[in-house]
């Protein structure tokens, strides 16, 4: 017994010492001539995977070749756009110099003072290849906080053998011909109906003091419409992936989701895959256009970056036409560069058309004021209440007013 214990203990101690020694032996050797630059870059793991062409590594190597004045060491890390903000704001100093983030997390980053502003020639360069709407999505109080490289929104995928291109312009026409599934209980999707009938969030999206307007007669009309919609046998609630499963077994003909599902849908529907901007629906005899939340994904630079010039240059490069084209070719990330969108291959891709059409025509910019945080649960609860049948025509007015109150309150009264 004693022997084994001793052996175990000594193995353990040796391991600890070894690990410690490895830790100390790292550290910088300097070379003459070029300036030593260390850049930590974070991106989703697909951008770094061999199977999808190592977009990040390729771009970084190209960037290094463009800048012979620097001897750059790249350190790669994994953080996807949606959660990068949380990871960076946890400890900005020990985070990446350049990272990708989605614009709805911009306030998390600025509150943590983790996001550098772009100005001067860099801002001009970014503006030269980016649409104004997209620039607005990463602008806060007049400052530009990133290089947008793609739009981020949801739209409709449908089975071309069931719906014609004319059908998909109207939800009512679609419901007559096939089964449509919609993430009814997800508050990223459901407000599309309310926006259609003139409901607003924080004025134009930046006026926090104006609050939420999801009340009044127009909102009640929408609630009533939704109560009828859920009763339609051709309308199915998409929750926990049931829409995708329905598409797979053929029981559902259209679903609402984003570019992240396009590969799976392509696999299911093949040549019958159609993608389109959101349809309109008929409310009290008038046609109302559904409006999705839209945002963007952008390259951000850490305000604590040691070598700011190199970091900003790299960010601009990662958002450039060249990098976007590669991103599109390797991973079908939809480009946003205005010149690139004129390219024949890009222009004719149905998913690109659908996403950009949604962004331009059938969406509103998702507000990122901090009170936006109060807006998610009440809408989700409304969706669930309508689905469960607890919100009906009888109490629609009351329930809508309650939702509006909840969206305008911090939950502390």
């Amino acid at each position: 017994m004693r022997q084994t214990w001793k052996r175990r203990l000594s193995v353990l101690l040796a391991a600890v010492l070894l690990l410690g020694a490895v830790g100390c032996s790292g550290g910088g050797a300097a070379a003459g001539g070029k300036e030593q630059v260390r850049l930590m870059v974070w991106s989703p793991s697909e951008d770094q995977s061999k199977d999808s062409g190592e977009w990040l590594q390729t771009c970084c190597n190209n960037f290094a070749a463009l800048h012979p004045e620097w001897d750059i060491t790249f350190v790669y890390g994994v953080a996807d756009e949606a959660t990068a903000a949380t990871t960076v704001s946890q400890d900005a100093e020990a985070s990446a110099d350049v990272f990708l983030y989605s614009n709805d997390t911009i306030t998390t980053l600025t509150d943590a003072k983790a996001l550098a502003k772009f100005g001067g020639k860099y801002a001009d360069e970014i503006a030269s290849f980016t649409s104004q709407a997209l620039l607005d999505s990463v602008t806060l109080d007049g400052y530009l906080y990133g290089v947008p490289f793609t739009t981020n929104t949801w739209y409709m995928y449908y089975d071309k053998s069931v719906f014609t291109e004319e059908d998909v312009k109207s939800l009512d026409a679609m419901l007559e011909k096939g089964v449509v599934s919609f993430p009814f209980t997800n508050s990223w999707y459901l407000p599309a109906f309310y926006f259609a009938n003139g409901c607003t969030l924080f004025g134009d999206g930046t006026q926090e003091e104006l609050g939420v307007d999801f009340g009044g007669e127009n909102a009640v009309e929408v609630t009533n419409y939704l109560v009828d919609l859920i009763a339609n046998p051709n309308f199915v609630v998409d929750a926990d992936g049931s829409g995708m499963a329905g598409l797979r077994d053929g029981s559902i003909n259209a679903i609402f989701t984003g570019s992240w599902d396009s590969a799976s849908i392509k696999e299911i529907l093949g040549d019958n895959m159609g993608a389109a901007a959101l349809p309109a629906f008929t409310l009290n005899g008038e046609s109302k256009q559904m409006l999705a939340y839209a945002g963007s994904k952008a390259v951000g630079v850490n305000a604590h970056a040691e070598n700011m010039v190199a970091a900003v240059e790299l960010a601009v490069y990662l958002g450039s036409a060249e990098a976007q084209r590669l991103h599109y070719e390797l991973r079908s990330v939809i480009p946003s560069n205005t010149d690139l969108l004129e390219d024949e291959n890009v222009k004719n891709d149905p998913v690109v058309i659908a996403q950009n059409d949604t962004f331009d025509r059938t969406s509103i910019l998702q507000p990122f004021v901090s009170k936006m945080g109060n807006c998610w649960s009440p809408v989700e609860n409304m969706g669930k209440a309508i689905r469960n049948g607890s919100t009906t025509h009888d109490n629609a007015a009351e329930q809508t007013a309650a939702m509006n109150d909840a969206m305008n309150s911090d939950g502390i009264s």
Partner: protein
Amino acid sequence: MKKETTKSAKAIRTRNNVLIHILLAVLAFIWVFPVLWVIMTSFRAEKGSYVSTFFPKAFTLDNYIKLFTDTTILNFPKMFMNTLVIAIFSCLLSTFFVLSAAYCLSRMRFKMRKPYMNMAMILGLFPGFMSMVAVYFILKAVGLTEGSLIRLALILCYSGGAALGFQIAKGFFDTTPYAIDEAAMIDGCTRWQVFTKITLPLSKPIIIYTILTSFISPWVDFIFAKVICRANADQYTVAIGLWKMLEKEYIDNWYTCFAAGAVLISIPIAILFLKLQKYYVNGMTGAVKG
């Protein structure tokens, strides 16, 4: 008459037994149901996260194969090894800490004994992750939050507080008569020798119990690993990997693999339990006696 009463008593007993067994069977089914479902999902051939049938329409091993071959996005084998290494080392360290602390508190009398036991009791009332942020910044200050040192950082995290969980082992040691220790010391043993040559060989059950519990906690931990690993994907543990598989971008392709991963991580624990089961029960009863 007499015969009839015994018969009816027997009948009542049988009826009660039947009722109880039906109840137990229902409870057992409810308990096993989710486990069964995960196992079946792990062999499911249909893709996607949502199915309309309880039993898969077709079975396949592809989910397991994908888990170990499709490593470019989520490197499961690497995560599995990371977790295994971390769990084994934490297990060794914390077992040593726990047994040492328990031995000292059981066998020696010193001024801080009572205060230490009270302090451990009170500290034990707080959840460990309360100190998470502080732990992160301390590890960062020491320089353990980058590269492969993260593994060491996690090992330290999981084993550092182990000495506070001495109660059960102490209770067990209390049951071994002090006279044995005295006899050994009269024969010339040092404290260390008493501990290693007398106490430990007599305490197999509690050693096993300590090993089991201190292996499982790092094996299944999510929260510390998430805070400390951050963007270092090559240091991820299985808990983070499994969580990643359920994110919006991956869920449709990785859901069945997630179930396969869940089955796989339960295997080492299951083996440990099966091998050490008899000691485990002894360990717990010993503690109750103490």
